């Protein structure tokens, strides 16, 4: 049965910085983030590197640095999740799979690291049994127990980190960039571990910039743009020409993959501290309205998805007249891709033109 594990609503994270001399400024890194995770579900948070995704993990665990301030609300199993509760349940009910294998202690045997602190001998014995069981599950033989981290291969060290997260029977696992720097086989292996956890009814929050990895395991994908979540889409929507995706950035992202269209989109993500007052995607959007430049759209629910866009309903039904793009911008799209984006009358024109040219050819 699925139960709602964690609900994060409207959280913002900002940093207090010294700019010139003793002047202080507030740098907003995550704005108005809303997300929820149920048990047995894998939710991926997808954003480019340096966009502040890891801070989400740190805020859930309550390990933000002291100059960061957090606003908004988090609930865990229906109850408010404050700093005190975070400190109590982190490591037990909420576990972290860290980004890098450097998080292992180089001077400590692997098995001791996995079981962590023990109250007495009995506790240690039972934990060691549990650790053996988990290691067995991940194909780590008995010799590995007594090894030091430097004796492990990259893939083995990953499995040890996963075991560390699982030893306390967590209900929620946060995997913070578990795949970069690994070869294809190890990536597949790591993702399989996440899948297995979800099958055991653990909720998984996967934080990544690797869209392939996210697409292959996640149920839901939250797309990060300039510190905002702009769309929470189902994984099935990332297929075909991306016609089921709603937000223009999500579409652009999907169509930019080498496996799809490799389509060029101009412009940059605004930097932290230079966010426009309105929609963060306003400058790059092909079809903005006047409202978009000054007012920030909120994340609204559309059928089973959530989108932050004023024209979401129109984009969803694909009935927005797309501005005529210059051939220069279109040179990466193939014929079918651009055809999908035409509106109805343009499509008719296109077909007629094709037909007439065919006849002429015959």
């Amino acid at each position, binding site marked *: 049965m699925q139960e709602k594990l964690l609900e994060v609503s409207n959280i913002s994270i900002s940093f207090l910085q010294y700019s010139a001399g003793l002047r202080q400024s507030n740098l907003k890194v995550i704005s108005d983030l809303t997300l929820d995770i149920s048990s047995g579900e894998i939710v991926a948070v997808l954003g*480019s590197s*340096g966009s502040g995704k890891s801070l989400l993990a740190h805020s859930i665990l309550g390990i933000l640095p002291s100059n960061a301030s957090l606003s908004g609300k988090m609930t865990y199993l229906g109850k408010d999740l404050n700093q005190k509760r975070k400190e109590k349940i982190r490591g037990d009910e909420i576990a972290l799979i860290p980004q890098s294998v450097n998080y292992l202690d180089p001077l400590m045997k692997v098995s001791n690291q996995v079981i962590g602190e023990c109250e007495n001998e009995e506790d240690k014995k039972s934990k060691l049994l549990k650790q053996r069981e988990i290691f067995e599950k991940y194909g780590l033989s008995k010799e590995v127990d007594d090894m030091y981290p430097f004796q492990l291969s990259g893939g083995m060290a990953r499995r040890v980190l996963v075991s560390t997260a699982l030893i306390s029977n967590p209900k929620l696992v946060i995997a913070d960039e578990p795949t*970069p720097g690994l*070869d294809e086989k190890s990536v597949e292996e790591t993702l399989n571990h996440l899948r297995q956890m979800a099958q055991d009814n653990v909720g998984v929050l996967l934080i990544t910039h690797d869209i392939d990895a996210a697409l292959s395991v996640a149920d839901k994908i939250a797309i990060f743009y300039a510190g905002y979540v702009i769309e929470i889409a189902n994984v099935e929507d990332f297929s075909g020409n991306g016609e089921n995706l709603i937000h223009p950035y999500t579409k652009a992202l999907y169509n930019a*993959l*080498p496996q799809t269209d*490799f389509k*060029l*989109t*101009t412009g940059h993500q605004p930097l932290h501290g230079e966010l426009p007052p309105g929609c963060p995607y306003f400058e790059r959007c092909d079809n903005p309205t006047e409202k978009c430049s000054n007012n920030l759209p909120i994340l609204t629910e559309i059928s089973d998805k959530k989108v932050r866009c004023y024209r979401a309903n129109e984009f969803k039904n694909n009935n927005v007249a797309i501005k005529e793009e210059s051939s220069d911008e279109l040179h990466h799209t193939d014929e079918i891709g651009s055809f999908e984006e035409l509106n109805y009358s343009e499509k008719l024109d296109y077909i007629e033109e094709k037909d007439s040219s065919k006849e002429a050819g015959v």
Partner: protein
Amino acid sequence: MKLQGENISFKYPSSKEYIIKDLNISLKSNEIKGIVGDSGCGKSTLCKILSGYNKSEGKITIDGIENNAKNKFNPIQLIFQHPELTMNPKWKMKDILFESWDVDSELIEEFGIQKSWLNRWPNELSGGELQRFSVLRALSPKTKFLICDEITTMLDAVTQVQIWDLVTKIAKDRNIGLLVVSHDKALVERICDDVIYFDEINQSNLKEL
């Protein structure tokens, strides 16, 4: 012009095992060639050898003349995966950019680099923006061959397309030979005219030993 690597073999001085064995590779001007291989198979090592950063057995020649990069501008330029590690944090972007060659302002605009970025420190720009600088920095008129070692691996898909669009366009314009190295097969096959599957070739050579 033709860049040629003949019988390249490489091992670290401390070990006996070869990482690369008897590899032959050639790259012509105006050619876009790709190398695909898993992480850790020696792609980056090969890049460094070709551009003269690492010494190896075998010969690296340009039109039959051995490339000696000492005391002059290296016509084989290498761009790395992490731009933030290749820039001096104590220098502003303009100093970093103009250190290598006298970049004209048209090209800066073409690269989508805004004037205000030139007055910033490296830590005030994102990875995609920094990578534009490192590509531009390598594109001196004297550059004849450009080796791109996983230059878009850390970037999101939209920025990745932007960077490759720029690099391939400039390479075609300037008649530069481009070597694209990545673990991402789909990407390399999308950009390149010709793809080398590094693992297969290298492994078979290593087995012969």
